[in-house]
């Protein structure tokens, strides 16, 4: 390790490598605090050629590496295992080019999501994927996780907005994938890399598709007696052919937590659920769509439907949704934001079961979710120092995933698999399915030095088919 450190310092200079225990401490985990491992070093490259040299040095010394953005991920994807090296993208934070006419931007991976939208607003454009962490998460991290957000219902997730990538492969080679014009020859390797959680290489440049800012936005707040009627409104809206940009439900437990916190948004604490519906588009159409959506809410049993009169009121409505994590977080030292997807029609039944699972495990569980996508986010407030409570959190988390999969759903809608859910992959995939995914990994990184230990379960078959793999994926750690 000393030899590797010396080499890394030669590449990046003394201030480009962190290796003291107190410096490494903050890199032990990401937003999922109960999985942690200390890296052996953190590197801070400024450009692709330095990333290439770091990767080659790691490979020479047989040390795995992981790229890291802001560390806001919620599945442990950016945690370095096996004494691995972190390639921190904080210094690769430049917006390289904005081409307003063609609605594209070329960025380095360390650019913060919200900073891009701020920088391009003057051109009448925005970057659509808007994960809750958008004020701090990076676009490189978004590419790794195929991040979503409330507005993906209409605009799609990260993968729908990435046109081209520059990628450092596990052997240090630099490749350009895709084409800014969007139709490159050969296989769609950009599509394969987005959402691969940093296991196929280190992204060093991203070409993104930008969207025109809508002429008008209407934000509705529906107050419902219960979650079931709010879900019914969501189904009615979708079935009618409306495509809102967001359909978000907040349950009563969350409303009460938010209202008792600094995030209080003036929501009625006796409401069973609130629905935030946002519609955007041309002036001519959006007002009519908002009326139609309001009518669907009323028919489904909303006791009250309000339309935001101005930007301040819109922000207030959204505070009830976006303040949920902060409000739940203040109830205990740790917050587990779970993530699963079910077919939308199953939401009411699944939510009831999710709450029952939380209650059975004596946990503080509440729900905010992307109802339009069927994407659940049960939030559990807990204290990881309480071993018994942590065990109950994990048991409940697994039960929730099983219930969602039985309903025809999947185990992650936007947070990724990472360390958190790798052992649950067999709930969704057969051995053959997983082998087909590993085949892609082997094509990119036959030795599995690139962010090992993520996505794939640590059971027998994972790496044995590939004699070149060093077996990092198989070794459990924590």
């Amino acid at each position, binding site marked *: 390790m000393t030899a590797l450190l010396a080499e890394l310092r030669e590449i990046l200079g003394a201030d480009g490598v962190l290796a003291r225990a107190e410096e490494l401490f903050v890199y032990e985990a990401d937003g999922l605090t109960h999985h942690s491992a200390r890296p052996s070093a953190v590197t801070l490259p400024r450009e692709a050629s330095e990333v290439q040299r770091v990767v080659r040095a790691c490979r020479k010394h047989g040390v795995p590496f992981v790229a890291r953005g802001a560390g806001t991920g919620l599945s442990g994807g950016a945690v370095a295992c096996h004494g691995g090296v972190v390639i921190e993208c904080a210094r690769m934070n430049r917006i390289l080019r904005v081409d307003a006419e063609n609605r594209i931007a070329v960025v380095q991976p360390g650019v913060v999501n919200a900073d891009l939208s701020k920088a391009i607003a003057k051109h009448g454009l925005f970057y659509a994927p808007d994960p809750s962490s958008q004020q701090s998460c990076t676009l490189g991290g978004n590419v790794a996780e195929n991040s979503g957000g409330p507005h993906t219902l209409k605009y799609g997730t990260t993968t729908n907005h990435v046109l081209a990538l520059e990628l450092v492969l596990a052997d240090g080679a*630099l490749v350009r994938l895709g084409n800014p*014009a969007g139709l490159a020859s050969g296989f769609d390797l950009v599509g394969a890399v*987005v959402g691969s959680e940093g296991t196929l290489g280190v992204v060093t440049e991203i070409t993104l598709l930008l969207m*025109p800012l809508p002429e008008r936005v209407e934000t509705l707040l529906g107050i419902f007696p219960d979650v079931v009627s709010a879900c019914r409104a969501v189904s009615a809206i979708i079935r009618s052919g409306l495509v809102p940009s967001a359909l978000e439900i907040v349950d009563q437990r969350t409303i009460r937590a938010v209202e008792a916190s600094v995030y209080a948004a003036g929501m009625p604490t006796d409401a069973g659920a609130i629905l935030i519906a946002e519609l955007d588009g041309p002036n001519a*159409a959006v007002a009519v769509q908002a009326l139609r959506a309001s009518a669907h809410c009323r028919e489904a049993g909303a006791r009250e439907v309000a339309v935001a009169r101005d930007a301040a009121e819109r922000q207030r409505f959204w505070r009830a949704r976006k303040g949920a994590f902060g409000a739940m977080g203040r109830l205990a030292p740790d917050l587990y934001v779970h993530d699963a*997807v079910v077919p939308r029609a199953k939401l009411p039944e699944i939510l009831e079961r999710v709450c029952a699972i939380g209650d059975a495990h004596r946990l503080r569980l509440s729900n905010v979710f992307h109802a339009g996508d069927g994407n659940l986010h049960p939030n559990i407030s807990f204290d990881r120092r309480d071993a018994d409570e942590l065990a109950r959190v994990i048991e409940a988390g697994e039960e929730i995933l099983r219930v969602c999969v039985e309903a025809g759903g*999947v185990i*992650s809608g936007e947070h990724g698999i990472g360390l958190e859910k790798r052992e649950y992959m067999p709930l969704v995939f057969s051995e053959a399915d997983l082998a*087909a995914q590993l085949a892609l990994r*082997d094509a990119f990184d036959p030795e599995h030095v690139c962010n090992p230990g993520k996505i794939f379960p640590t059971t027998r078959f994972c790496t044995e088919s590939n004699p070149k793999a060093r077996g990092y994926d198989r070794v459990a750690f924590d």
Partner: protein
Amino acid sequence: MSDPIAALARELGEICTVHAPLPLEGAQLEATLRPRSEAECVAALAALARAKLGALITGSGTKLAAANAPCRARVRLDTTALRETPEIDLDEGVARFGAGMTLAEVEAQLAGSIWRLPLDAPGESSTLGGALASAALGPRFGHPRDNLLGLRIALANGTVVKTGGRVVKNVTGYDLGKLFVGSNGLLGVITSAWLRLRPSPERTETLIAPAPADAQLALSAARAFSARTAALVDAALAARLCSALRAPRALAIELAGDEAAVEADRAALVAKLGAQPAPDDTVAILRETQAGAGIRFRVAVLPSELHALCGLLGAAGARTLAFPARGIAHAFFAGASDASVFAVLLAGVADAARRTGGAWTLEAAPLGLRSGREVLGELDGSIALQRAVKRAYDPAGVLNPGRGLGEI
């Protein structure tokens, strides 16, 4: 040594028909496999891989001429009988269909609902599997990848795998669906697909106007909020769509969406460009043109480069049909009879693409002209990775051998 074709026929039984050599895509095909289920499909692939027999994978055959040649196959694998019972969820707006169904059959299944299939690959009888495998773009909808939720795929290793699912948001594992859409049957055989459907619009209007000389004006018209199709057509096609229109180029636009949005865009196009009504079958005519006979290339560029691209393609002797909002031009060449003329055309297209920073590919040309040359675009720095991906899924090289970029 036993005849591998006879052995294949014995193993696969009635789904394998041995016949007199059938010349197709430069191959002499000695048998046709026509699986009726994914189990039969994967059994066929496993048998082919064991015997190291190359197979030409076909749907209805509308995109066969968009590949490198010759194909080093001895067998044809026909996917048109992969027609399992559809699953359609009208509440959710998602559905699963077998790969062998034609797009028209899929649309018929959705008739009477508010949902439409967001795929419109050119070619009368395109199958769903073929439309996804070729990632063919029609005039109307975006890339098939954007509406794909999940796939079931038969692999050459004898397994059927799934990727994605039926839900509309999913980051569970690698997104192999993206890899297989547009992979032209080189990595596996798509047996069925879950798709996100799109609501049918409240109103549609089709308009045509003389193309504005200012390319930016054409681009902003093509980007009208409710514009679902926007095509720059040449004088001949313009005259066919609107006999009263006398213009060297015209912009044909289909608006679709809410009543109010369509009306606002229609009024603006009439006021700004003097647009007039175009026939209801305008989009069908555009699609038919995209699938026209002869030699066709497609070039994708940034929208700002489209005007320059069309100029260069025109100078190379092509008729063009272009989609400004997407930055796509189709270039049509009337009958090049010999290979040297074709080589000049291809070089002209490749040069036009290079000078405008675009990506080109051949969409159709007679077999004799394609043989022995790269027709699918430029080999770039990713080719080693592309080859590694091919090896990972088809180590024996039995799927469409020789037909991919770089003879993959």
